[in-house]
């Protein structure tokens, strides 16, 4: 069978399983729809959380990013796992004890204010839609590369599947499909990693393999990689390029942002008790770490393999995957010195960010690129980091079924995260905006209907993002984490750990965090991208890491404003007292 047939088979079977599971676990009540009836086993919830959390970015993009960033890529590894320690220790058990349906629910009740609730809803919707846009791009890439269908059709199929199980099943349906999706995605990630680890180092455990010696050589893989990357003009693979303070702030912003993401927090509302919430966060991190500790190994293998398989080759001798991805437009080659050999080294190959292709073919048969070459360096190859995970099995010449499995895994990662986000958006709309703020008279049955409508509406918007992908997806990721870190996390944390914090403090804090962080990111990413360099940054902190500063500002402002205004009413201190008890 061909790769394409294998992919149809694997993706088809996985879709059938998701729909079957959703059919078996339909939501009957709002509690089912929002929090799966609060009856999910903590280990099962851990697995669902892992799938919910690990998005197309984790599955498809992260290893590729690390492959090109080397040690700087550690910010993602530590940032996106360390947040679970904060969640388990500081937020999840208490928010579960509080026992409502959504994150804005807690903020609205704790700060006895619908203004606070609505501000929280707005932050939540912005964060979640930002995230969804990325998922749809992931589905599109997989479909167009492996099934050779139009990207738009791929997006529509993906949305259709999510529609069926999210609208029918609500959180309950999503929870159990996420478990299935976790199994698919982790299997799809580990199988090629283990294969490649054995091929390159004879060690079947990738986590150990990338610290081992290469087959047939006494040299350690990472030492060789350091040498090769330095020879090509890059910084050594195991050394930082970014400044310490920036690495520190980005890691902190990602950690705190992770702990403040509403679609992750709400997963801990689905377990039966607060002690289950703690346990569940632990299991979630175990399941996540399985992928996150494998990813840096995949990165190191891929970087090594990539250099080995294209350096100084003629185009006609270049591997099949090189030409396949060139066809999709994610690889480009511009023969700067006209020697007919592919030369990969540091620096940008082309002027302008993305390659623009002409219709005709060049002398060696490559796609002609219209961009001017960047003549400040010798690099001739443009490679989109997103292809590394998908291309890795091809680069390592693994069997077709492994390649197909990776495709199914990528789709599973994207769909599971999209579904979790959709339910978070729809419950914020139907529960927080309609039931709790604007239409308090609706019955439970009507609320359930509205939540289904809101889900359908959110899927429609997400589909639009997929078909007309906004060009700024990569930039807005910094936004999602920065905002979660600088708006939601501090008010949640202080809401539990400080009894004195009142509504004036919380609202002022959220607004200051929001305006400062959003302002900084918009200034450097959208208004003046040419100024986005170390010299212009505040305290040399990049927009990716500024959420951490926003968080500190939020906390300071909240505490100062609270101490100057009247303390919260007695019921609120009693509520805080209550959630702190076992």
């Amino acid at each position: 069978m061909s790769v394409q047939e294998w992919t149809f088979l694997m993706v088809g079977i996985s879709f059938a399983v998701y729909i079957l599971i959703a059919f078996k676990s339909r939501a009957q009540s709002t509690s089912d729809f929002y929090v799966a009836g609060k009856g999910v086993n903590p280990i099962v919830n851990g697995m669902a959380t892992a799938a919910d959390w690990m998005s197309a970015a984790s599955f498809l993009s992260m290893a590729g990013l690390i492959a090109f960033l080397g040690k700087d890529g550690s910010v993602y590894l530590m940032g996106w796992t360390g947040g679970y320690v904060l969640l388990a220790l500081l937020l999840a058990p208490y928010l579960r004890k509080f026992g409502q349906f959504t994150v804005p629910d807690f903020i609205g009740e704790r700060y006895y204010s619908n203004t606070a609730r609505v501000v929280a809803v707005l932050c939540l919707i912005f964060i979640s839609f930002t995230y969804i846009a990325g998922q749809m791009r992931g589905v599109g890439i997989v479909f167009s590369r492996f099934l050779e269908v139009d990207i738009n059709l791929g997006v529509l199929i993906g949305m259709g599947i999510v529609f069926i199980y999210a609208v029918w099943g609500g959180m309950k349906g999503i929870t159990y499909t996420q478990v299935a999706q976790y199994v698919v995605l982790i299997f799809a990630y580990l199988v090629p990693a283990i294969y490649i680890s054995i091929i390159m180092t004879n060690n079947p455990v990738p986590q150990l393999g990338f610290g081992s010696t290469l087959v047939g050589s006494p040299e350690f893989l990472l030492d060789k990689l350091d040498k090769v990357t330095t020879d090509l003009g890059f910084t050594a693979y195991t050394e930082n390029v970014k400044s310490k303070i920036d690495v520190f702030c980005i890691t902190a912003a990602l950690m705190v942002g992770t702990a403040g993401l509403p679609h992750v927090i709400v997963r801990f509302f689905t377990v039966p008790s607060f002690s289950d919430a703690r346990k569940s966060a632990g299991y979630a991190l175990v399941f996540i770490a399985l992928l996150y500790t494998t990813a840096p190994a995949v990165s190191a293998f891929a970087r090594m393999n990539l250099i080995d398989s294209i350096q100084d080759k003629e185009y006609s001798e270049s591997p099949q995957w090189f030409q396949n991805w060139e066809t999709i437009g994610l690889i480009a080659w511009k023969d700067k010195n006209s020697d007919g050999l592919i030369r990969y080294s540091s620096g940008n190959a082309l002027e302008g960010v993305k390659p623009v292709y002409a219709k005709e073919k060049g002398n060696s048969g490559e796609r002609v690129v219209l961009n001017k070459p960047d003549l400040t360096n010798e690099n001739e190859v443009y490679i989109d980091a997103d292809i590394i995970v998908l291309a890795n099995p091809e680069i390592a010449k693994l069997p077709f079924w492994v390649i197909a499995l990776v495709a199914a895994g990528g789709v599973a990662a994207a769909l599971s995260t999209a579904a979790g986000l959709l339910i978070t958006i729809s419950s914020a709309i139907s529960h927080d905006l309609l039931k709790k703020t604007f239409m308090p008279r609706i019955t439970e049955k009507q609320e359930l209907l509205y939540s289904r409508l809101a889900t359908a509406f959110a899927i429609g918007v997400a589909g639009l993002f997929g078909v007309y992908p906004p060009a700024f997806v990569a930039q807005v990721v910094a936004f999602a984490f920065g905002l979660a870190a600088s708006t939601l996390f501090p008010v949640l944390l202080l809401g539990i750990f400080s009894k004195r914090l009142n509504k004036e403090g919380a609202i002022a804090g959220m607004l200051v965090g929001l305006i400062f962080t959003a302002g900084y990111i918009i200034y450097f990413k959208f208004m003046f991208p040419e100024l986005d360099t170390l010299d212009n940054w505040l305290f040399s902190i990049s927009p990716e890491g500024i959420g951490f500063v926003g968080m500190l500002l939020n906390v300071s402002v909240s505490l100062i404003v609270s101490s100057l205004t009247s303390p919260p009413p007695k019921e609120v201190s009693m509520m805080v007292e209550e959630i702190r008890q076992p």
Partner: protein
Amino acid sequence: MDYYWKTNLKILICLLAIWFLVSFGFGILLSDWLDQFRIGGFKLGFWFAQQGSIYVFIILIFTYVYLMNKLDKKFSKDREEKGS
């Protein structure tokens, strides 16, 4: 109640100190210095940044689960004794 919350805070501070040390300490601030030591083919600072810190995170959460479950039990026992 006061005792329960204060003990909880003590546990939190200890565990978060370790959390900070392995990630921001070993993985970032002291990473270059640690790189002079090696485990296998890894420089130690690099290993903490890409592997070690994650393993410690998992241990931290399960330690917290264990300690808090013990504290919860003790607390509910105390409450029963007082109540009766």
